[in-house]
């Protein structure tokens, strides 16, 4: 574990160096991110200019949800995407072999080889949105609600991460399948709004097939006190189980890869 942390910090350092070298790019990236934030807030403003609530969700709730969505999206943008590209290139060009000769957990390594460190700004923005949303709605939050919100947000993100690991592991079996992560990214946008606005078939899709709602809507529901303890524990268990399952799939896939390439 210590070694993995050391490897992560080394990668962060190298990547930070890269972000600093391309200074204008980094500033431009932050500016673009802020522009998207402006767009999101403007769209919420327009929405609530014509409506009091969206399926019972008030402006404050929607802002909290936006914060949670941005946390998840930051995970996608800063880690999932850059490493997917690297992974796919590795499979195509055979350089993935190097990952398996290193004395570090291979799943951890392929997850963090490229990190857009500047995106940490986004985490702060998302946290500010969550706090601002809670303040806007004015409803006091109990300790239990706060804890279950945080725990479910983390386990939800872990579930999406696990899904990603499964998706890229599939490439070990089906090499033609290398743009399946796009599908995950395409559906991420649904996490901006409460799952209840979607028609039933879509709600099933984003809850059970590509569980974006579990990582976005569900934690906010916990914060609003809408989840029973049993539901909260259930969603948490799903996240933990997903995480475990993904590492099994990864191990099976990588065994197959090293078997096939030798």
């Amino acid at each position, binding site marked *: 574990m210590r070694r993995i942390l050391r490897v992560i910090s080394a990668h962060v*350092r190298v990547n930070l*160096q*890269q972000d*600093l*070298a391309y*200074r204008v790019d980094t500033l431009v990236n932050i500016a673009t991110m802020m522009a998207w934030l402006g767009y999101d807030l403007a769209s919420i403003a327009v929405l609530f200019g014509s409506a009091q609530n969206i399926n019972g969700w008030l402006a404050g709730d929607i802002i909290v949800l936006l914060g949670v969505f941005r946390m998840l999206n930051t995970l996608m943008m800063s880690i999932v995407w850059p490493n997917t590209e690297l992974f796919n290139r590795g499979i195509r060009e055979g350089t993935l072999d190097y990952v398996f000769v290193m004395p570090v957990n291979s799943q951890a390594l392929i997850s963090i080889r490229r990190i857009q460190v500047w995106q940490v700004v986004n985490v702060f923005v998302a946290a500010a949105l969550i706090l601002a949303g809670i303040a806007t709605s004015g409803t006091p939050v109990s300790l239990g609600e706060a804890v279950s919100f945080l725990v479910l947000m983390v386990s939800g993100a872990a579930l999406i991460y696990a899904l990603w690991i499964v998706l890229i592991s599939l490439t070990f079996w089906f090499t033609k399948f290398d743009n399946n992560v796009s599908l995950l990214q395409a559906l991420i946008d649904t996490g901006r709004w409460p799952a209840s606005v979607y028609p039933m078939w879509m709600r099933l899709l984003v809850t059970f097939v590509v569980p974006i709602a579990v990582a976005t809507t569900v934690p906010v529901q916990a914060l609003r006190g809408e989840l029973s303890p049993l539901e909260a524990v259930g969603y948490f268990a799903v996240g933990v189980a997903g995480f475990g399952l993904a590492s099994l799939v990864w191990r099976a896939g990588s065994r197959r890869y090293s078997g096939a390439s030798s």
Partner: protein
Amino acid sequence: MTLNASTPPIAVQALSKTYQVTDRAGGFGAAVKGFFKREYKDVKAVQSVSFEIAQGEIVGFLGPNGAGKTTTLKMLSGLLHPSGGKANVLGFTPWERRDGFLKTMTLVMGQRNRLSWDIPAADSFLLNQAIYGLSDAEYASSFGELNELLDLKEIIRKPVRQLSLGERMKCELAAALLHRPKVLFLDEPTIGLDVSAQARIRAFLKEYNRRSGATILLTSHYMADVTALCERIIIIHHGQIKYDGALSDLSRRIAPYKLIGLDFDDDTVVDLAPYGQPVTRENEDGMQYVQVPAEKVSAVTARLLAEQRVRDLTVADPPIEDVIERAFHE
């Protein structure tokens, strides 16, 4: 814009090109510093280069990496605007990029594909026919001629990505020549090809030049290309011309020395240091070599024959690679 026979198709006068590049050092500290302040420096890629090339000539344009060869070719084909100087190619100033100019010259870069990767070359050829406004008859005769020289019929039906490097280069050349350009700029046309494919491309260029009378300026890292194709070479280094003249004169001008090869009775090994500079050659043919200034060859030969038991003796020019290598560094 009329050309008479005496006007050289390529005339270059004091052509120069200076770039500005950022200076970036390595390391974490430098990266942080570079975030706030950035330093620039001028790079003089080409410095006051002048030459003329006559109709139908094949000229080798040689120099180490970064010498300014590609920059010069890009200026002459209109892709780059020079920082100073003049150039005239077939009556046009290249960087004005007139259609008339573009239709009469071609640039082939061995490391850069122009053909679309995903479709058969035949389709790209038809596209070029339209782009260069060739009538069906012109296209047919032009393609027929190229096909005769390059044997394209089979390979142009396959998507380009499936071709071997040599086949791809044949198609690249054909695509670049369909409009019968009068001036050809070739930048490393044989790079990466295997020896036999190189030889085929070389033979093609020679024959194409003979038939069409086109003027060719080419760069290559392979001396075999140069010795097979070019009677005249221009050597450029650090953006300046070091040599412009006949390939055969190069050794006399740059490296006025000869190699004397010796084989002694009973295969004895003789210390040749008293006669000149002994040379070990990679290509072992059982002979010993000694490098001697050209004007002393006859005297040294006479001494060797008198003092040693020589079975066989040859006098040869130094290998052209060595000479050019020397020219680069002078």
